[in-house]
C-alpha cells in the first residue's frame, strides 16, 4: 500500500515536470515570434516616416532641407567669390 502510494507521487511529479517543460518551450517560442513581429513593425515604421529630404549620414555632403526657391529683385546679401 505504501509502496503504491510512493509510485503514484513520483508519477504525478514527473507529469508536472513534463508540463512545465512544455510550457517553458511554448513561452520561449511565443517570445521569439513576438520579437520578430515587433522588429518588423518597428522597422517598417522607421522606413515609412523618413522624409525624402532627410539628411544623409555623416558620410555624405548634407543636402539642403529645402532647395533654394526663385526670388526676384535685389538680394539682402551677395554670394560670390571673394
Amino acid at each position: 500500500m505504501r509502496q503504491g502510494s510512493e509510485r503514484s507521487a513520483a508519477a504525478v511529479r514527473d507529469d508536472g515536470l513534463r508540463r512545465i517543460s512544455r510550457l517553458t518551450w511554448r513561452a520561449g517560442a511565443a517570445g521569439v515570434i513576438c520579437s520578430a513581429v515587433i522588429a518588423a513593425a518597428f522597422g517598417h515604421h522607421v522606413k515609412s516616416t523618413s522624409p525624402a529630404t532627410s539628411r544623409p549620414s555623416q558620410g555624405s555632403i548634407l543636402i539642403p532641407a529645402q532647395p533654394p526657391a526663385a526670388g526676384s529683385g535685389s538680394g539682402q546679401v551677395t554670394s560670390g567669390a571673394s
Partner: protein
Amino acid sequence: MTAVAAPARDTFGVFGTTATLLVSEQAALAPARAIADAELAAVDAACSRFRPDSELSALNAAGGAATQVSELMADLLGAALRAAELTGGAVDPTCGQALAAIGYDRDFAEIRAAGVPRHQRAGPVAGWRNVHLDRGRRQARLDHGAQLDLGATAKAWAADRCAGLIAARIGCGVLLSLGGDVAVSGPAPADCWRVRVTDDHAAGPDAPGQTVLIRSGGLATSSTTVRAWSAGGDPVHHIIDPATGEPARSRWRTVSVAAGSCADANSASTAAIVLGEAAIEWLERACLPARLVSHDGQVQTAAGWPAAGPERVTR
C-alpha cells in the same frame, strides 16, 4: 523678441574680405556681432597661413612631428579632411606649397597690388591622406612634406559656427555671409533670406546673376575670376587642382551650390570648379542644387536649382 520687417544689418571686414551679418531682431545685432568677432578671431589665430603664430603655421613647420592642436584647430582640420573625403580629394587641404608656388604666400591685397614672380611648379599636392588627426590626443601630424592651407574650408565652416552660436545663444534668426559664403540659422523670415548669386561677392545687390530664397543651411559660390592675379606673366587663381598642383583649368568660372551647411556648400562649389565637365553629373548624384556659369557666361543648373527669368550673366 518681436520680429521686425527688415532684418538688422552689420557689415565689417574679416579674413581679408567682407562679412555681412543679418539678424531678425534689432536688439540682437550687437551681441551677435560680439559672438562673431570672438569666434572669427579665434579661427584666424588657429588657421591663418599668413600668421607665423598660428597653429597651422606651427604644424606646417613641424617637419612631420606630431603637434598639439586646440579643440578649435582639431575641428577645422576635421572639417577640411571631411571635405576632402566627400569630394574624392577634389578639395584638398594640402595645397599650401602649390599656392606658395604661384605667389599666394602673403595676404591677397599685397599680391593684387604688386603681382608676383612665378615660382617653380609645385606638382601634385601631397594629398589629404598625409594629414593625420588624433582627436583623442588632440594631435596632428603631416607626412611626406604636406603643407596645409585651410582656405578652401575654414571660412565657410566659420560662417556655420558663428551663425549656429548666434541663433542658439540669442534665439534670433541669423544670416552670416563671410566673403559670399552664406550660413543661416534660427527662424528664417517669413519671406525667406534673399541671396543674390553672382561672380563677385563685393558686387552690388543688383549685380548680374540671380536672386534665390533660402530658409536653412548654407549657400556658397566659388569662382576663378576674383582671387586671380598674374604670376610671372601667367594668369593664375586660387583654386588648385590637387592632381596637378596648378590652378584648375575649369569649364566653369563660377559655381554656386546650396547645401545643408555652408561648409558643405563651399566644398561642393569648389569641387565643381575642379571637376569641370564632370561636375554636373556629380552634383546631380549628390542632390545638391547648383548654378554653374561657364567662361562665356552661359548658365547651367543642377539638382533642382530654380530657374531664373530671362536674365543672362554677362561680364
